[in-house]
């Protein structure tokens, strides 16, 4: 029999037991849908991470400290600084000249006093406190390793804008979902410096009124207040102009208290850190953390993929079972086919094709449902992210999902149909004349 004749016969047989066929196809479809949805969602997440890493976003960032490196610096995630070493504009230019470096973001962290607000939004009085203001170049927001929860970052060069962190929110008795409430409030902040007074050393404050323009998710360089680089440098200069050079108030003598260096990709983080160590500076990078997160995610991926595959295998077993039932019912028919001349392989092909058709149809339906389901999950995730004040995601539909979602179940169905089809092919033509 030609393949065309076999296909015609197999497709006719598929319509013979509509109930059974529908249930079998449904099982395949659901398994395919599960796998497709898992793969799509997983791939979306993975793609975003890989994109960030590959494009040298904040994930491949390195923090440089104003200190000499320890000997095993490159193997450490955390900066193990030696003696103090100032970071100035010349150092920034040296680091920028490194071939593996994409960008350098200078950071200035300086001690400040906060005297206002006097009370929290809930009316409880709070005292003044010491804090650190962290200045960054906010004209390059994509490089800054913080995620905005509400509002925006301070405008570049602004002397009145401040973004606060979650820990500031907590101090104000708010959680991250209430971040909007803090926007527009004022903070009175002073840089101190040590001066000689009549009664000995005194702290003299220089005060500013800042308006909260944003809330960010992470602690920013050890401070709760993110300001423009200019503001932080001005306050740092004030504090270090004191009689003790700012030591008493814990101001750094380095013009920049740190650099955030973005390497050209995650694979360049190691070489860049070595080069920075050669320039004489300690550095830290979460590369080992990323690696372990990546490994962990790998395990999760495998488990989820296995869940989907198990579902598909179960569906394939369903196909095998349906075919076995069909063969039991159709013994005489198979006998007749053989009696009128069908060879073993003709019968084998008929049943394999029937299995394949079930898998193929189930795969198409399942891929469609799966993509739909991942859209729904994507919408739910985006809702969750929006609630948390995080940016949403766009679904990634890998082309192999479409191909794999149809070819995979078809092949698995054929594999599942192999045993029953073989059994059918070995049936004796004598079945045709048995009573």
């Amino acid at each position, binding site marked *: 029999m030609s393949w065309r*004749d076999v296909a015609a016969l197999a497709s*006719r047989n598929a319509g013979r037991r509509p109930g059974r066929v529908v249930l079998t196809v449904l099982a395949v479809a659901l398994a395919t849908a599960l796998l497709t949805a898992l793969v799509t969602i997983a791939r979306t997440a993975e793609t975003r991470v890989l994109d960030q890493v590959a494009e040298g976003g904040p994930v491949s960032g390195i923090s440089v400290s104003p200190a000499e490196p320890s000997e095993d610096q490159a193997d450490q995630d955390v900066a193990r600084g030696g003696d103090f070493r100032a970071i100035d504009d010349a150092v920034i230019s040296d680091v920028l000249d490194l071939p593996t470096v994409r960008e350098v973001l200078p950071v200035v962290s300086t001690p400040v006093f906060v005297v206002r607000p006097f009370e929290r939004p809930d009316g409880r009085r709070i005292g003044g406190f010491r804090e650190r203001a962290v200045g960054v170049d906010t004209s390059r927001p994509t490089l800054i390793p913080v995620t905005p929860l509400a509002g925006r970052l301070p405008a570049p060069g602004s002397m009145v804008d401040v973004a606060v962190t979650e820990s500031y929110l907590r101090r104000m008795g708010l959680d991250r979902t209430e971040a909007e409430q803090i926007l527009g409030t004022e903070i009175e902040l002073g840089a101190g410096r040590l001066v000689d007074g009549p009664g000995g050393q005194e702290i003299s404050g220089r005060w500013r009124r800042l308006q909260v323009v944003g809330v960010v998710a992470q602690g920013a360089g050890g401070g709760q207040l993110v300001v423009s680089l200019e503001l932080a440098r001005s306050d740092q200069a004030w504090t270090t102009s004191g009689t003790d050079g700012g030591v008493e108030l814990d101001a750094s003598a380095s013009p920049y208290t740190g650099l955030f260096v973005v390497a050209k990709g995650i694979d360049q983080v190691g070489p860049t850190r070595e080069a920075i160590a050669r320039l004489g500076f300690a550095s830290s990078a979460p590369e080992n953390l990323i690696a372990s997160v990546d490994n962990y995610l790998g395990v999760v991926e495998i488990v989820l993929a296995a869940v989907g595959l198990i579902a598909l295998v179960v569906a394939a077993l369903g196909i095998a079972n349906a075919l076995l039932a069909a063969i039991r019912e159709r013994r*005489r028919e198979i006998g*007749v086919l053989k009696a009128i*001349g069908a060879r073993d392989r003709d019968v084998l092909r008929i049943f394999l094709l029937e299995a394949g058709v079930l898998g193929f149809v189930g795969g198409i339906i399942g891929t469609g449902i799966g993509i739909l389901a991942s859209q729904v999950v994507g919408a739910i995730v985006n809702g969750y992210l929006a609630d948390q004040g995080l940016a949403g995601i766009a679904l990634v539909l890998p082309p192999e999902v479409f191909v794999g979602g149809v070819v995979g179940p078809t092949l698995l169905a054929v594999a599942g149909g192999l045993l029953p089809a073989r059994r059918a092919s070995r049936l004796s*033509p*004598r079945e045709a*004349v048995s009573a």
Partner: protein
Amino acid sequence: MPVPAVVVEELSHSFDTARGALTVLDGIELRVTTGEHLAVVGRSGSGKSTLLSLLGGLETPQHGRVEVLGHLLGELGRDELARFRATQVGFVFQHFGLLDTLTALENVELAGAIAGAPRAARRAQAETRLEQVGLLARRDHRPPALSGGERQRVAIARALVNEPRLVLADEPTGNLDDEAAATVADLLASLPSTNGATVVVVTHDHALADRADRVVRLRGGRVHGADSGAAVPG
């Protein structure tokens, strides 16, 4: 002397059952002349169907020699036997053996497809055979829409589509009323002259057996009597 279409010598066959081996055929000797219309009669369990299966290559003989149309069936492999069944033999079953999912024409054509006939040729041949059995008008009906007699005539058309030299029929009128049975009997009786085929019919339908050139009776696994056109005792 006419060329024999079928030569059976010392054919014995048994089945394994729970109570041990059951001998169904026991030293059968039989010759069927080319163009002959032979009826094989006997009680249920007398081995009629087994003999037919062996003649049609549905089974391979355990002992003895079965030569059909020049083929020694005991020496053919599975694929050769399949090819033999597809091209040399036409089968007619008591239960018709039609596929409900195919139309009458497609059922007839299926045998051509299995034999590997070109599409156009087998379609034409199928239409010719349906016409021969008087069912061309019902070519697009599926078996459930046909009467028993019509179904058996479609089955006969299918048996003839590859122009076999031997037609084997197993109780072809067993499920039919008298009128339909008579029509089928007429058809089968006409095959030697119209199609040049040798016909072997297994039956316990007297009317059908009466139409044969010769009747052999199986009893206890052996052939008894080889009358030509003789009446068959009940």
